[in-house]
């Protein structure tokens, strides 16, 4: 299990990285934290001819609070930062809660958030979190510079909206309004594994406690992270309680059609999606109405 030979580039600036990518678009791959790509290369399932190693791009190693209240996370920021960074803890509780479900500490110390998103594994937690949060993805090439909405970013298994020469250089997590409650829940065979099913919830309440907006995003439920739009819409304007969330969960179960996996059949995954929706919504409403944003 040794990777095939490749040529190695270790650009020190973003500009150099993008130039290299432009030059060797087809035969190169970006290496971020490497926690998904390197095992794939060890099995020789991936054999890039050129590896453009982003680990030396210190200019992208930031977590920044914008004046808009949004948070930007640069391409080389590791998962660990989502656990310990004060800005994330204070402003993005959903990201902070979910990151602890991403593999194990050794992986989180090395893997990057943006690398994880660009990898676009449908069973991964963070794509669902981004969908729920309506995050934006900053794609840049040597000639282009654009922002992609989360709903437009994930196209398929390991497939994103990034064009050939583009690189995901940062993401933006929008600021959270008042009366918002979030929750991430997943069930995996062993903690640290990819989830059999997982849900990210962002729930916004009206002043009277009814649902103003509800976002439900699921991991391992399709060939990308997916939303459940009918279920989301069904809660708007209603109080959020055991009875209403049960109805939402029922809609989720009709709306999703997850594929079979080794450890979980489609039927069981669908069932879990309902269970998790109910539990996570109740947790989210508790947080929204308690004013407590942070994960318990």
């Amino acid at each position, binding site marked *: 299990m040794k990777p095939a030979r490749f040529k190695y580039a270790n650009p020190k600036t973003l500009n150099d990285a993008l130039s290299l990518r432009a030059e060797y678009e087809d035969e190169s791959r970006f290496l971020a934290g490497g926690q998904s790509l390197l095992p794939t290369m060890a*099995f020789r399932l991936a054999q890039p001819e050129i590896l453009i190693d982003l680990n030396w791009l210190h200019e992208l190693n930031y977590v920044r609070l914008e004046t808009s209240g949004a948070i930007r996370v640069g391409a080389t920021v590791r998962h660990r930062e989502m656990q310990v960074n004060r800005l994330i803890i204070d402003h993005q509780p959903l990201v902070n809660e979910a990151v602890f479900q991403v593999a194990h500490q050794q992986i989180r110390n090395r893997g990057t958030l943006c690398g994880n998103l660009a990898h676009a594994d449908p069973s991964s937690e963070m794509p669902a979190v981004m969908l729920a949060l309506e995050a934006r993805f900053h794609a840049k090439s040597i000639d282009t510079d654009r922002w992609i909405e989360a709903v437009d970013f994930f196209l398929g298994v390991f497939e994103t909206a990034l064009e050939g020469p583009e690189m995901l250089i940062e993401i933006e997590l929008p600021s959270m309004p008042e009366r918002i409650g979030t929750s991430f829940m997943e069930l995996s*065979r062993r903690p640290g*594994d990819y989830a*059999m099913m997982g849900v990210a919830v962002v729930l916004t309440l009206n002043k009277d406690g009814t649902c103003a907006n509800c976002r439900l995003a699921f991991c391992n439920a399709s060939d990308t992270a997916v939303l459940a739009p009918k279920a989301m819409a069904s809660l708007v304007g209603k109080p959020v309680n055991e009875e209403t969330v049960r109805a939402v969960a029922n809609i989720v179960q009709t709306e999703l059609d997850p594929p079979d996996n080794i450890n979980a*059949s489609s*039927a*069981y995954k669908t069932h879990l999606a309902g*269970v998790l929706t109910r539990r996570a919504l109740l947790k989210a409403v508790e947080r929204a109405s308690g004013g407590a944003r942070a994960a318990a």
Partner: protein
Amino acid sequence: MGKKTNRYFGTRQRRNEDPALLTGRGLFVADVHLSNMRHAAFVRSPFASAKINGIDTSAAKKLPGIVAIITAEDLGELGRPTPLVVPPPPIEGLEFNQQTQVPLASKRVRYVGEPVAMVIAETRYLAEDATDVIEVDFEELPTAIDLEKSLHDDAFIVHEDMSSNVAARARQFKGDYAKAAKAAHTVIKRRFTYEHGMAHPMETRGIVAQWDDRVNRLFVWAATQGPSLLRGALAGMMGMNEGDIRVIAPFVGGGFGVKVLYYYPEEMLIPWVAKRLGCAVKWIEDRGEHFVATVQERGQIHDAEIALDKNGMILGVKDTFLHDNGAYNPYGLTVPLNSQCSVLGNYVIPNYDSTMTCVYTNKPIVGPFRGAGRQHGIFVIERLMDIAARELGLDRNEIRRRNYIPHDAFPFNNELIFQDFTVLTYDTGNYEPALDRMLEVIDYKKFIEDEQPNLKAEGRHVGIGIVSYMEGTGIGPYEGAKIQVQSTGRVRVVTGIGTQGQSHFTSFAQIVADHMGVTPEEVDIITGDTDQFYWGAGTFASRGAVVAGNAINEAAEAVAKIALEKGAEHLGCAINDVALEDGHVVTIKDTTKRVPLGELALLANPMRGAVKPGTEPGLEATRFFGPERGTTANGVHGVIVEVDPETMFVNILKYFIVHDCGVIINPMVVDGQIHGGVAQGIGNAFYEKIEFSESGQIQNATLADYLLPTSMEVPDMDVEHIETPSATNRLGIKGVGEAGAIPVAAAFAQAVEDALDLPAKGIELLDIPLSPDALWILTQS
């Protein structure tokens, strides 16, 4: 002569092997670096069943750093099918169709992963580069994958020289089951399927071989459980003298059965190619290879029935089962024979009739992995007991108690041929106290009468499982040991068995320390080097402590006697007036009159004068121990689980073990063995399953997908010991290595059924492994 007292034997002693292992100094086979060392990689079949029409190595030969590319046509004599490791047992009417593999396939491949070519290169990286471009012209054939379907008339035949996929068929019986069933009050029939998975020692297999033509010897370092066996196998395959081969098993990172001798192709090829090339060659199995290239356990389907009288006394058991053998059967019938014998459990079963059919399939080879088929058998009998208790309205523990082999009935002859080819006889046992102790520690009465109903009222689903098991351990043929006192006064013990984490460096030292009047730290145990000790079999079948332990005990006793004789002579007194103490021979009356053991060792090897006739130099003795038959350990496991009825996730709340492995050498070590066994049992019960596709591909061949239990899945356990000495050996010890793993799935199934009150809903858990998904589907129907 002072009487030996047990100062260290039987006590908790921290381990001698730990300092090296804790500081990164322990030598494992992958750490062996030699000058002029080359690296091997293998081209393996990507198909479970295919013809080979040709192999083109021309592109690979042109790559940098390639030393040699070997295919079957290069092998000569080595290319013949390997011998059986374990021959067919002497069972009347046995049908046995031997099929073993060749080191490199040339015409047919019969499982994914079967080696086809070997590359030797300057580095492993370069060797793998070459395997990528070796073109093998495979012509894919149909497969036999499903265990039952592989016996159908239209099944693909795995071995073209056979007319069916029956690898073996063996009926063993005692009494007359049919007659017993006729007279029975109740007969219960069920079908059980039991999958056991892969061992996955954290260190994969590996071997380094070096041919030294200055001395015409072959040096081999191997992650093996049986270094002497490997030496013998290499000698046989390569036409060499055993004495010209030195096999060293250094620290071995877990074995669990799969590093015993199987004539693994790589283990034959690496030494052979090292000799051919006149250099050192290294191959370390990677985890991807391990999934297909190392033996694994697998499934059995049992159609079993139990006949009982109205009081719940067993009149007889009948079992007909299929065993998935994989593509070849180098290890004979060891695993299914263990299953066949284990169905008898801890009970008096006067009439038993069992027929096993072993089936060739296009899957990797099945060989013993911790428990080695015993899990399957214990699951069958323990589940039958649970169902019988329910149908007869008896308490699950009461029905077991009534049927236990009574304490005074030992030795208990079960009349079957066991895996060691002797008649299955339980040497000693005392089952009721183990059950009593379990009921006490788990507080069964309180749980059933108070806790469970209260929890149920709260809407919680908590259940209990209590099962019994026995384990045949400590089988022959023999082990030996040589003990020498060094001039430093340290006591050196060499034995032929290997060691893979069983704490031999400590347990064996404890045996010796008491005889020699030294501390365990002053005893050096050397295992697994065939130049140090020629004879031996290996560490498997829970036999190390029993067989090697007793050989060491005998040798230590002999050396102690020599030391006392020499010491008495030196101190000018009678042998009865001296004792071994504090590394010295001392006079009993005045312990300040003493001579150090090291000095006696020097005196016993004089440079002038003759060694007296009838004596030998040194403080040294060699002894062997071969038990007439195995010894039988037993125990009771109790588990309390909570099930989330929505998700079917099972949370283990408590796990208790009452275990009897006879006399204990080091309770800390025994606890560790039990813990590790239970952890593997939990994997077996709920997490680990090899998923084969219809074309014979393993679908979950990574450790991200094949689920080994982590610290989050394994609960804390309470282990209690009962010591019923074995009658087969002077130390009274029984094996413990495999015990923990054996009854876990049975306990788990009982507890989950209980938690969810499944029998009331007409659901029984008859298949292992379980999973949340499987449980959910069962409860939906």
